[in-house]
């Protein structure tokens, strides 16, 4: 859909940048604007391939959901005791995915690690959209989805309220809060850039950006308030993110099921969340870098840092994972122990071993500089890591149900139906679709922050001289 003539006037200049340098600080502010704005105008053809592919997957998911809605959850081949299947597993997966954005953005912001600046915007977008996807699964898994609003504490004449004891209600609150806050955070941090878009755009898009940029003129008062507010929200987001996934963890840790009733679940979940999130960031980093020609901003040194961060988190997760096994093993609770042994040796053992290998062994690839420098390898590795993380969630849900307290309902050969797979695949389509739309509509690289980055680095370099 893009013809060659247009291709020509996009030039990605290749000049020498010291390897240790996150970004070329000689880059002109004007160029930053043009590069980023152009990315919204004309991405590479691959963009459209990805977009329509994801649209296709999404529509397949929608079909499956409609089918399930009509015929009841039976078509998902769920049963007693396999009541949740892939839905809840994938729900946790997406919730986990959503944590990295906050991590990169908020924590690194507070730590003044400015290499975050070129990449935090899409990370935050990822947070928002994966949360939306996770929300879908809450609905999809309901038997009477048309009655979902019963979970909301809305005033009603009969004084009927949700059951605030239920972790699911905690979930609803936490996810609601997290979604709101991260949307606010994403949008708020984007206002100065929206002003840039406004100034550059014309026609109805100008109106659109004019509305969103809330009359931003970059005055000193605006900047001052902006800085404080942004920092404050960041401070809120960190504990919030932690709370969200520990609450999701309580869905399981609070229940009676052997294999779920584990004290170390909340930290374990949080670590897993950050882990899968970072892996996803690497994936998207590589994709965006190519699709939007961001070689000058999403540079290898930044990728390198991200990978190192991921490796660190992977090790934390591995540790907590082992701790969980150990505590179950030495806890000497017969039921939990049986469940653990079943996971390692039972009919789902292959997935269990795959999960451990992908989650704890494969990340060592991130420990080698040479490998970190290779985009293709990093792409594969990051995808593998996320596969591992998805398997982790699968292991948490399915084998536990298969081997609970009650032997009569033990099941060895349970397997989800095509409907479940369809909806899971559809969710990936939905996520990618939203994300790609976002990239087209909004600046994926934060222009003003990159300007700051360049500015400060340059001045500090001159100061050194």
């Amino acid at each position: 859909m893009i013809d060659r003539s247009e291709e020509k006037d996009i030039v990605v200049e290749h000049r020498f940048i010291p390897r240790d340098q996150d970004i070329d600080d000689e880059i002109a502010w004007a160029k930053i604007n043009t590069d980023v704005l152009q990315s919204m105008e004309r991405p590479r053809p691959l963009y459209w391939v990805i977009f329509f592919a994801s649209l296709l997957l999404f529509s397949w998911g929608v079909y499956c959901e409609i089918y399930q809605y009509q015929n009841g959850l039976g078509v998902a081949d769920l049963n007693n005791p396999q009541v949740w299947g892939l839905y809840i597993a994938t729900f946790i997966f997406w919730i986990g995915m959503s944590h990295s954005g906050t991590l990169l953005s908020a924590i690194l912001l507070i730590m003044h690690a400015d290499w975050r600046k070129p990449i935090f915007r899409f990370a935050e977008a990822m947070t928002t959209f994966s949360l939306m996807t996770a929300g879908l699964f809450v609905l999809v898994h309901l038997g009477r989805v048309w009655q979902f609003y019963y979970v909301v504490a809305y005033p009603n004449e009969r004084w009927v309220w949700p059951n605030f004891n239920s972790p699911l209600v905690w979930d609803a609150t936490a996810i609601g809060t997290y979604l709101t806050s991260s949307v606010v955070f994403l949008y708020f941090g984007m206002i100065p850039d929206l002003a840039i878009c406004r100034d550059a755009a014309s026609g109805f898009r100008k109106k659109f950006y004019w509305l969103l940029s809330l009359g931003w003129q970059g005055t000193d008062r605006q900047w001052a308030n902006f800085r404080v507010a942004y920092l404050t929200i960041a401070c809120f987001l960190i504990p919030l993110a932690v709370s969200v996934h520990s609450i999701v963890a309580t869905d399981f840790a609070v229940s009676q099921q052997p294999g779920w009733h584990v004290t170390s679940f909340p930290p374990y979940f949080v670590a897993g969340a950050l882990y899968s999130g970072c892996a996803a960031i690497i994936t998207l980093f590589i994709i965006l870098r190519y699709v939007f020609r961001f070689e000058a901003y999403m540079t290898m040194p930044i990728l390198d840092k991200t990978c190192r961060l991921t490796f660190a988190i992977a090790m934390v997760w591995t540790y907590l994972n082992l701790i969980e096994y150990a505590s179950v093993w030495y806890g000497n609770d017969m039921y939990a122990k049986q469940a653990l042994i079943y996971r390692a040796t039972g009919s789902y053992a292959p997935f269990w071993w795959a999960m451990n290998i992908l989650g704890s062994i494969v990340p060592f690839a991130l420990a080698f500089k040479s490998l970190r420098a290779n985009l293709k390898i990093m792409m594969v590795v990051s995808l593998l890591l996320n596969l591992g993380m998805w398997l982790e969630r699968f292991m948490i849900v399915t084998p536990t149900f298969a081997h609970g307290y009650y032997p009569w309902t033990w099941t060895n050969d349970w397997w989800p139906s095509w409907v479940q797979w369809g909806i899971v695949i559809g969710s990936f389509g939905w996520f990618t679709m939203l994300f790609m739309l976002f990239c087209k509509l909004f600046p994926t690289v934060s222009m003003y922050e990159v300007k700051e980055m360049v500015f400060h680095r340059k001045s500090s370099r001159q100061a050194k001289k």
Partner: protein
Amino acid sequence: MSTTAHTMALFNDFDGAAIALEELRSRKIPGFRMEDVTIKSPIEHPELSEMLGKRPVYVQVYTLVGAVLGALVGFTLIASAQANFLVQIRGGRPLVPIPPDMVITYELFILCGVLMTIVGCFIGWKLSGKRSPLYNVSISVDKIAIVVKADRNAISEINNIFSRNHSLEIIGE
């Protein structure tokens, strides 16, 4: 017609703007007050804004109020809702259980905190207030602007100062 007028000068970099500001402050021009100076810049530059004197930010206050209220109101609402729900024992737990309510209270604490922060910031921006017409798209690219509000008769002198400090462009009303 009003006695005051606005003028805006564009500068290439912060240093130029800084010198100009310095001169504005040193030269005691009648009908001109430093408080009326506004800087418009593509990125934030704290040092520069300091030259304009203290301009306090009240966002944190809103945050504090929001967070505290969120927590208190949150807990009260939940607890009284539970107390009012047709008395239903669940799993032998108390009708008003503390730990679960704490979880939700915590979330509301954060939610209201965040929202009030935004509100505070918007108020700080005097949102929906009139924006000054003196603006140039190049500000969002790489130029720094100094906007001054002063008596009409002071304007010409101020403009001189700007031009002397080789500002790229001076825009009046």
